[in-house]
């Protein structure tokens, strides 16, 4: 039905009816997912279902699904299915497959087709319901709210996708297709039961230090920019088209799209230049929820002020306000009706402080939120000025007996059972800081006594030197002496960035490791043995010194699976340290997501939120 090489369909109805044979053979082939052997695959999108390559409903003439275009061949009007994702959803195809009657040599007549479509439409929305969560401030709890909504809708057997048009984040991850997205969108995809992909977070802005940021579009590095230029050029010229095409695809292929805003929608100094909030809400005609954090006080003011600064059309999209983070035992809050009287928008729910869930928190530089665990084994993470990917350590905080702390100065390494130098946005400048702050000396003093692990930039710092001849990291050409605890030299010799998901085996103790690499620069290992043996080619990754107490790796998320976590903890010795029951991180995340969904079900009437409006 679809020929991806020409944007305009050339089928005509007559042409199609000659194909009733194809329709019949298609039915006898049975229900399939994506037909990866088809030379045209994927003609719509990589996750498409190919059961109905020939659509039994053709031509449905439903403007929500396809459109009439001018045929190149005949010059007449022809029905095009190019934009239809409906027929290629797993759930829609499965339902239709069950409903299909016997196909005779004449194909299906109009009445049958209409009936089939009617029934199918009763089960699956043709266009998603869009629900958008906006925050009165940063850190209001938007991300978790979106995550919870995704899982709760998923639990109702709906096809769900999260969306955030623009994210500024230091914590990114790499999908199985090598696309880079913010880690929180990855979690939301897990909650929604959909594949994490660039589409869900089409613009990702990664601060690189100083005034420069890298723009990642649809998961791929796009270019570097300054904040100034980002707002004056990229946002007006390029962002709208990028956002619109990704959002539209999601709206056409899901029952629900849960959209997350960024920061506050009422930054009135940015009027007209904010593409992360009301711009998207209007584009999707989303039902909007405003989340207000009550923890800091001022919740009444933020709720009323935010809505008062929007225009009428924007305000009308708001269906409710959610007061978030009510402290336990806080009782009820009186006078909430004042908010509705002032803004016309009701307070839908007062959500409690969510219990400590095992989830990476909303992207925040507030590292104290990541400090965690209660044990006697203290693992000190060196708080580099340009620290990145600090969600790497959340898994450690889950272990019994382990406490993760961030060390700002050398004295804070005292008593630590292990030291980790984390990833950084800039190895060269952070290495300089390490030396100047006295942190380097403190680390060297402890070498050989406690395990020391460097991840990514931290790994580069543990080596002998960093060669940045083109000044890719530091801005000026430099050859920097590093800590010299590992026999390794790192070269920054091209602007290439390695972004890949990897798995492998722990060389020393066996067991699977999983993680992702996001870095520039390559590290040459001397004679020392690698830390991991990677799939599928047995390449060595990372390294380990002779005593086995200094380790370096490029793998982010290295603690997520139990094998390496257990090994690392075992190096600390002592009765207090070894975690006996190594926890499976994926299962823990899933359990957390279910609890989150349950929590939101208890406080918000999701059926009312979905409404009974049909998708037309």
């Amino acid at each position: 039905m679809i020929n991806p090489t020409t944007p305009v369909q050339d089928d005509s109805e007559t042409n199609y009816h000659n194909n009733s044979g194809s329709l019949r053979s298609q039915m006898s082939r049975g229900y399939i997912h994506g037909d990866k052997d088809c030379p045209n695959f994927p003609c719509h999108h990589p996750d498409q279902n190919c059961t109905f390559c020939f659509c039994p409903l053709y031509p449905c003439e439903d403007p929500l699904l396809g459109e009439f275009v001018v045929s190149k061949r005949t010059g007449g009007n022809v029905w095009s299915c190019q934009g239809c994702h409906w027929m290629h959803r797993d759930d829609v195809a499965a339902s239709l497959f069950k409903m299909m009657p016997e196909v005779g040599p004449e194909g299906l007549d109009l009445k049958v087709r209409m009936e089939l479509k009617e029934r199918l439409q009763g089960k699956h929305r043709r266009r998603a319901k869009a629900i958008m969560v906006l925050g009165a401030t940063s850190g209001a709890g938007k991300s978790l709210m979106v995550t919870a909504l995704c899982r709760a809708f998923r639990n109702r057997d709906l096809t769900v996708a999260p969306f955030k048009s623009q994210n500024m984040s230091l914590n990114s991850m790499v999908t199985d297709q090598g696309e880079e997205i913010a880690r929180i969108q990855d979690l939301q995809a897990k909650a929604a039961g959909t594949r994490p992909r660039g589409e869900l977070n089409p613009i990702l802005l990664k601060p690189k230090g100083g005034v420069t940021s890298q723009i990642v579009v649809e998961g791929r590095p796009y270019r570097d920019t300054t904040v100034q230029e980002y707002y004056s050029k990229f946002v007006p010229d390029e962002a709208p088209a990028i956002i619109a095409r990704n959002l539209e695809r999601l709206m056409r292929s899901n029952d629900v799209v849960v959209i997350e805003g960024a920061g506050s929608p009422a930054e009135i100094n940015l009027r007209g230049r904010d593409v992360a909030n009301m711009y998207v809400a209007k584009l999707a005609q989303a039902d909007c929820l405003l989340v207000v954090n009550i923890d800091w006080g001022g919740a009444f003011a933020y709720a009323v002020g935010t809505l008062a600064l929007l225009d009428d059309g924007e305000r009308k999209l708001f269906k409710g306000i959610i007061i978030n983070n009510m402290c336990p035992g806080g009782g009820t809050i009186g006078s909430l009706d004042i908010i509705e009287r002032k803004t016309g928008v009701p307070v839908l729910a007062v959500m409690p402080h969510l219990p400590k869930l095992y989830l990476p928190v909303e992207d925040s530089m507030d590292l104290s939120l990541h400090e965690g665990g209660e044990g006697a084994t203290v693992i000190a993470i060196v708080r580099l000025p340009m620290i990145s990917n600090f969600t790497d350590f959340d898994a450690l905080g889950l272990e019994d007996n382990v406490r993760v702390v961030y060390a700002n100065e050398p004295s804070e390494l005292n008593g630590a059972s292990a030291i980790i130098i984390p990833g950084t946005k800039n190895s060269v400048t952070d290495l300089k800081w390490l030396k100047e702050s006295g942190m380097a000396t403190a680390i060297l003093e402890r070498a050989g006594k406690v395990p020391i692990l460097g991840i990514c930039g931290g790994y580069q710092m543990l080596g002998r030197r960093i060669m940045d001849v083109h000044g890719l990291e530091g801005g000026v050409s430099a050859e920097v002496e590093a800590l010299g605890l590992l026999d390794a030299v790192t070269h920054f010799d091209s602007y290439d960035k390695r972004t890949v998901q990897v798995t492998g085996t722990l060389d020393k103790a066996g067991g699977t490791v999983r993680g992702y690499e996001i870095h520039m620069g390559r590290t040459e290992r001397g004679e020392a043995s690698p830390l991991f043996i990677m799939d599928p080619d047995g390449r060595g990754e990372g390294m380990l010194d002779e005593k086995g107490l200094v380790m370096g790796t490029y793998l982010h998320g290295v603690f997520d699976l139990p094998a390496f976590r257990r090994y690392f903890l075992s190096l600390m010795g002592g009765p207090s340290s070894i975690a006996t029951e190594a926890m499976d991180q994926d299962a823990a995340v899933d359990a957390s997501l279910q609890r989150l969904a349950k929590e939101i079900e208890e406080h918000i009437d999701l059926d009312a939120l979905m409404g009974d409006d049909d998708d037309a």
Partner: protein
Amino acid sequence: MRKLMVQGVTSGAGKTTLTAALCRHFFMKGMDVVPFKAQNVSLNSFVTDDGGEIAISQAYQAWASGIEPTRNMNPVLIKPKGSGQCQIVLDGRPWKDIGRGGTNQEMIEEIRSHILRSFDDLCLGRDMVVIEGMGSPVEMNLKDRDVSNMWLAKAVRSPVVLVGDIEKGGVFAGIYGTYLLMDEEERDLLKGFVINRFRGDASILGAGIEELESRMEMPCLGVLPYVRFSSPQEDSMDLRQISGGVRGEGDVRQRWIKELDGLLEKWEGTWDLSKVEGLVDRV
């Protein structure tokens, strides 16, 4: 007797630091200035020369004003004791414990009269008082029990400056919402606003500030740059903040005053102190 009150859009908006900075500024101008905060919720207290317990932040503000702390600078101190219990310290002495039910109207009246008496005693013979509010002045559910924000401003007829923290985002909404929820008399006392903890080039805020100034019909008095400053605990319950300040040797107080002077230097030119001074007499 001149007065100026600092109120915040949220807890931790920077009221404590701003109050200390204003005290310091007026002290340096040779004025006989005192700090006042009607009520504090804090675990960090200080014992004054006369054996009274007050919140540590008023003690620091007193030192910034070049005087020793006295108990009437902070007549009500609420000390959380865990599991919903709080001890109320009144005029520097433990008064009573309250449970989940909180205070009743009768207690509120008694507390209010103590506050006004302390205020009058404190101000006697002084040139100026800088009053710090608590939390947000428009927690509508708590308004009838207010003893530290607009109730006090009205009772002592003090002009008010509102400070909002831009770090959390949504600062325009926070400031405007606070204004919208005030009644006529309160809006009348509110004379201007300050944006705190800004990082970067303040010119990008221009359009937003102008819009707020015209909506609220009052000036923005300054956009204060973010300065890392180890203030002795804002009026927040956040225990993580307590550790700040004690590093190396020397007298912490001295060190802190030096830091405060450094802060005032860094803020110079980012706020309009002459306008602030002008407000003081405009009630």
